[in-house]
């Protein structure tokens, strides 16, 4: 009698675990497909980001900035005569020379 009910429990357990396996496999597939989509989206965003960084890097390249500043905005680097230097003397502002 004990043997028999043990057998039944085992059979039920086997059937249940078989069904669970199918279920888990299915969930795994769904999750994997989702993961792939997410990875794809991440890659897309990453590529976009890199492209933007590159664009920024290109536009802010010192050579380009220099040309833009001089030619489009009419900026110049001030000559020595145009500069007024304010000194922070060590004896007045501490030893570093900077606040």
């Amino acid at each position, binding site marked *: 009698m004990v043997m028999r009910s043990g057998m039944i429990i085992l059979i039920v357990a086997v059937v249940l675990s078989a069904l669970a396996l199918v279920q888990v496999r299915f969930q795994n597939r769904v999750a994997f497909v989702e993961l792939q989509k997410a990875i794809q989206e991440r890659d897309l965003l*990453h590529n976009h980001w*890199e492209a933007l*960084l590159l664009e920024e890097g290109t536009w802010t390249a010192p050579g380009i900035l220099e040309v833009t500043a001089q030619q489009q905005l009419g900026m110049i680097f001030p000559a020595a005569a145009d500069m007024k230097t304010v000194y922070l003397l060590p004896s007045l502002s501490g030893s570093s020379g*900077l606040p």
Partner: protein
Amino acid sequence: MSRRSRQQPVKTHPFRHWSVALLVMAGLGGLFWRAAILQATERAHLEEEGRARFIRDVPDLALRGRILDRHGEPLAMSTAVDSVWADPKLFCRDNQKWGLLSKQIGIDLETIRSRCEQYGGRRFMWIRRHLRPSQAAKILDSNIPGIALRREYRRFYPSGAASSHVLGFTDIDEVGQEGLEKSFQDYLAGRDGLKRLWRDRSGRIIDGMEIDRVVHGRDLVTTLDIRLQSLLHSELSRAVSEHQASAGMAVMLEAQNGEVLAITNYPKFNPNNRAEFKGPLLRNRSLTDPFEPGSTMKPFTIAMALSSGELTPETLIETSPGWWRVGNKTISDVHDYGTLSVSGVVVKSSNIGAAKIAMQFPPEELRELLAKIGFGSRTGIELSGESAGRLPKRRQWRLTEHATLGYGYGFSVTALQLAQAYQVLANDGLRFQPTLISQNQNARSKQVLSAEVTREVRAMLRQVVTPEGTARRARVVNYAVAGKTGTTKKIIDGQYADRRYIASFAGFAPANKPRFVMVVVIDDPKGEHYYGGRIAAPVFSKVMTRALHLFNVPPQPPLSLQQTYEVVDASY
């Protein structure tokens, strides 16, 4: 009828039963036999076929890390591109569509035809690599049989030619070929992963697993400063073309730790254009091309003399009448400077003075000091192809060899070695290995000159960049600059060539508390001027001015103000 049939069953021949049964059995047996055969002999083959239809092993491309400057600005980075490939079996047989393809990606029909002939028997050939994803998508939309895309990454260098020699470049498969791209290939590249995907009949992914996890490349943070790199590059290029020189090199170091802020060379190449990748343009001359340093080396002769304690900056040296015969060679100065102090020898750049000082000591002593400062051996910077220069070791020194060593002839150095040597002077005799990598744990320092001696030499070098010295064009408004010019004859085919020179300037600023060390070398200027003080020093001045401003280095009060406030600082 029915009753009759029940009573009299139809008689059948037993043979019919048996023959049907036998046929059925034979059929079944055949099936079993076939199944057994398939299972036993063709299993591997069939499984493979099945897999080939539903399972794909797809590489997970590792992204190559970026190369950044010290502030995090990108110097090199990869962007996604699509490469077009074709399956020749499907693509080549239908030349109706070639025209469409050729129009879309700008490749002529003849090229397609010849490629089809070459790769006709294979299942893969490249059509065009590295297209912008948007452009490539259009090709896919036009549904040409056998055409497909493969995602790849391409390297871009936003700073262009300015830093091309340091950064180097990668080949079309993103493997580093030169410069930092080569030295740090493994660090930047990472490792591709592998994914196994199951697809259904229409190609949708239904399941998958990671076989090998992708390891993306890491970002490399360098010590370079993109602004100084560009500035140094444009000023150097301008000087080279203005003086019709054949080449130029420039190096800028941080005085306190030997970190490289900029290395640039001319001729240059654009790293974003493979057509420009030609041998001589690619050379990082600051590291690979040694030259005789000439006068820029005199401060080290003086440093040796001061270290001995036998001479002081005030010791007098006789340089009249402007020429001096040593062995079979006549050493001459530009002018007759008369009697000069040791300081004066540096300020006026007297060859005779430097030779006379050198000859008061055994030649091995100067050679040893030069070796300690780093000449004759590679600096160990993280770039390949570095030259060690040449610092001969002689058993017997001839008089002329001894004398010329004193003013910088008879041995050769690279621009980087020269910068390292001036870094020693700038940093109280502490020598650091030049490095391109931030927070380099391996950076070693070594005391090679005493702080006292370097302070005295710095004071002399400061005099050079005054109206009395040879390098007044190197001066920077509001800051004290120290440095030394050099103008050496160029050696061509083992002989000093007539009227062919190498002009150089090496120095640092601010003189009292050095922040930056810079070396500028102009090779073979063919214009009116050829003196280092005339053509190399202005490059130093322009770039140093901007560098001091960019890094917020406080300007130095003029002497009058210092006296007013009684600022006591011996090094001013």
